[in-house]
């Protein structure tokens, strides 16, 4: 009996899988190389909540700039900050709060002072059928609701708002990002959740926003900046200008953001 031979059996599919992966990676690399050289590329890294609006703005930017390809990458602001601070190849970076932008400024990763281009207001969201009949923040008392963890920006705002409304019920979960809160509401696994206005717009008619006057001041500012290592600083600046133009304003409005004007220094 040879145990060494027997043990090989369960391993072989894994080897095949690895080989397949290696092939795929090689294939992708090959296809990628062809396009470079004749096209200018602008890489925009942005907070996840900007996915819909920035995808549209990227399309418009490409339409207005012949031969320019805009590559977008969306992630949590903290992840973006870590990536850009450690040299990720971005030209423009937009985050969902000032603190993460400051982390990049402290790491000397920005070419200029960031400017605020949008505001996102915390919003009480419920599933379309509103099973727990939530009519305002105070109704969260005794309900099954989820919010962001206090350590992340949406959670800090939520904690303060809940305290202000006198809600003492423990949230069922402290999600690590706002999309996770939205997912729980979308799936009907929570009676309500505190998300941003842009998230409610992105979710369409599957989620309702409950008007809550006490939340108007619970908002986060979105700063944007050109990175220090940008290979296309002029194009990058034009993209930032687009965000602050009437056209950019309209796209951001439709996505649920409010105006960030009047506060240029984050």
């Amino acid at each position, binding site marked *: 009996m040879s145990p060494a031979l027997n*043990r090989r059996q369960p391993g072989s599919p894994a080897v095949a899988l690895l080989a397949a992966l290696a092939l795929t990676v090689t294939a992708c690399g090959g296809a990628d190389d062809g396009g470079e050289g004749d096209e200018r590329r602008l890489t925009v890294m942005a907070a996840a909540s900007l996915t819909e609006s920035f995808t549209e703005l990227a399309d418009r930017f490409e339409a207005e700039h012949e031969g320019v390809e805009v590559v977008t990458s969306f992630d949590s602001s903290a*992840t973006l900050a*870590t990536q850009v601070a450690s040299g990720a190849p971005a030209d423009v970076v937009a985050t969902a709060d000032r603190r993460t932008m400051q982390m990049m400024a402290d790491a000397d990763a920005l070419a200029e002072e960031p400017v605020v281009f949008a505001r996102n207001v915390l919003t009480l969201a419920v599933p379309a059928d509103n099973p727990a009949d939530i009519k305002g923040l105070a109704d969260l008392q005794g309900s099954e609701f989820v919010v962001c963890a206090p350590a992340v920006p949406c959670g800090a705002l939520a904690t303060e708002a809940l305290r202000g409304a006198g809600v003492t019920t423990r949230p069922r*979960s*402290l999600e*690590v990002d706002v999309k996770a809160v939205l*997912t*729980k509401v979308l*799936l009907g*696994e929570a009676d309500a959740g505190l998300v941003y206005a842009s998230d409610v717009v992105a979710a369409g008619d599957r989620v309702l926003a409950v008007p809550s006057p006490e939340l108007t001041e619970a908002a986060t500012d979105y700063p944007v900046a050109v990175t220090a290592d940008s290979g296309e600083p002029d194009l990058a600046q034009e993209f930032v200008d687009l965000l602050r133009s009437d056209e950019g304003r309209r796209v951001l409005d439709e996505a649920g953001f409010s105006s960030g004007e009047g506060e240029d220094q984050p």
Partner: protein
Amino acid sequence: MTTGTRLGRAPAHLLVPALLGLVFLLVPLAALVARTPFRGLPQRLTDPVVLDALWLSLWTATAAMAISLVVGLPLAWVLARVDFPGRSVVRVAVTVPLVLPPVVAGVALLSAFGRSGVIGAPLRDLGISIPYTSTAVVLAHVFVALPFFVVSVEGALRATSREYDEVAAALGAGRGRTFFRVTVPMALPGIVAGLVLGWARSLGEFGATITFAGNFPGITQTMPLAVYEALSTDPEAALTLSFIMLVASVLVLALLRERWFGEIAR
């Protein structure tokens, strides 16, 4: 393990890739340890949130393996030893969770055990709610780790000839007795390997847990969730937590290997 005295020295075309593989696995881990700020270690080790997360991770991973052993061993045995129509389909079904992105696994679990899920809705009528509980963490772990265990054990069962089972049967042992006295002891190294693999997978599980069980300290926040939450606010803390988790898991595995597995799995 036998030395290569009779077979000759290990050839370079095997040693070089082996070394490459080892280096690839170890360099990121060494880099992680090198970046860990050890000054914060004593403080984190006494932080109740960290201890809660570590304890939760360890006990839920262990509970998940206990469940995997009870249902997974018979399942692997059926796949390896019992001829029935559609066996290959069942085998594929068992391995599907392996390729499923863990977040999707979490959504699948919600669809089954969530508030409006096929099993969750009737349970809720009985006053039982699984999401956002430690039970949900264990279920998420079982869902992602059970396939590892079953595949590993099935491989081990197939590697040990069924002739031994037949001999035992010929000597008058029933199928149940044969299973416990002959089949299981012979496949023990594979079973142990499957448990270790599944336990390790449970310990690192993130996506399914945070989707299905949410994130609340002391209840559903396992170490990977705590690490991820810390990453968005305090990357240094995240590194320290990762280090603690790494050391704890290596310690447990090393202890088990010495005390128990060493004697049977060697």
